[in-house]
């Protein structure tokens, strides 16, 4: 499922040539629209790697979960620290679980 961009939060990385999500997307799917906000240009090509969700400094991008994993209220939110990521998993019943995963960015 494609990334959903909250256009009230997205500032297009201040209208730089390439916003962070565009630089990081391995499929080169993210781009800026005419208003300078990020959009995913080919929704069906996205393979949910969540790179854009993690990199966005404004926290404006949310990756919608595929329905096989969870219906609407279910969410997966990564918050990135220096050498760890906190994953908040919310399932369809609203149950919250948190995982802290170490990364190798030391």
């Amino acid at each position, binding site marked *: 499922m494609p990334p959903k961009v909250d256009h009230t939060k997205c500032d297009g990385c201040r209208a730089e040539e390439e916003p962070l999500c565009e630089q990081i997307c391995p499929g080169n799917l993210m781009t800026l629209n005419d208003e300078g906000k990020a959009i995913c240009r080919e929704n069906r090509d996205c393979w949910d790697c969540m790179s854009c969700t993690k990199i966005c400094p404004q926290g404006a991008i949310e990756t919608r979960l595929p329905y096989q994993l969870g219906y609407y209220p279910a*969410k997966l*939110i990564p918050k990135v*620290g*220096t*050498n760890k990521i*906190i994953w*908040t998993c*919310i399932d369809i019943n609203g149950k919250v679980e948190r995982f802290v995963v170490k990364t190798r960015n030391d």
Partner: protein
Amino acid sequence: MSKAGVVLCRCNSIIDGRIDFEQLNKKLAADKKVQAVIQVDMACSPRGKKTIRELAAMEEVDRLVVAACSPFSKGAVFDGFALEMQMPKQLIELVNLREHCAWAHEIKDADKKALTLIKMGLKKVLAARDLGQWSAGCAHVNKLKCDRCKRCIEECPNRAIQLGADGYPAADPAICQRCGICVGGCPLGVIALPDFRLEEVSAMLAPLSSGQSPVIAGFFCNFAYQEADLMGQIGRQHSPGLHIIRVPCTGAVNMITVNDAIAEGIDGIMVVGCDSSQCKHRKGNELAKYRIANCRKGLEEQLLEQERLVYVSLGEGLVEPSVINRRKCVRCGLCAQICPYGAIKITDSGDYEVNARACRGCGACAGACRSGAVDLPQASGGKIMAAIKSALAG
């Protein structure tokens, strides 16, 4: 592998009267990263220096943690020691046991808090690494990771960061004030100050979670830190769960650090700085508030309480504005040009006037005025001369 030496300063029995040094010594010696622990009477005295020098000469010790007083009281002395020992000053970490632990807590809480504070210092000093920022002496952008988003160029209050010829931003050491506002704003966290790197700060957060609950990480700007010292000096106590970390300005707190703190299981994060419009770095506190407001929305999305992250401002009161003596003023306009806050304006009659609300009492105008017409009431020429006289007499 680098190991650290720990120096415990008794401060003429002021500190060890309230903290059990023997037990602290035993617990620290059990740490694998600690090579040696020594206790000295006065670390800032010549004899203390000799002992520290002996410790630094030990083979495996290449970094030091000095548990003594506030960096604002004797920090310069230890920077001097580092210079004499030809050691980068980033490798000596001063832990504030006196003002923020011995004086600020009950005896029963102080032992545990002291251990946590020293462990925080150890973590910081062991994470210290030179990526080029030590020699640069100003904000340094790690070009390997920078993605050229140019936020730092926009946010720098002094316009010290410019785009270099290679397309990466670089700070000008002559202009950079080391306020760290770029460090706090960098979305990738790749900017470092000579003594402030995000990795070091997040390493400091690890020992906190063992503290007394509720564990609070307090990021105090230099101004607020001095106020906290003052509270310690007059014996006001604060919660033993509050761990004070010094940052150059509240703008230097990156939200990546906040995420780290939440991941470490810290209950709350306090960012303490100046009242709005009182920031010495002009907009550090406003940027911090903006970033915190954004981050709080993120916390709510994660189903965490917003109250876990707060900005606290200390009212500074009004600063006495500088005064222009009309009789001496030659109306050259240098003060209006030099004022960093745009507080001096020319009036219709051709006189220069200080806007008392905008003036923050930095004294740049008083120093620059060639005819000696501008004076700062709180630091007038007479007051400075009197202070020099008393210093020389002592």
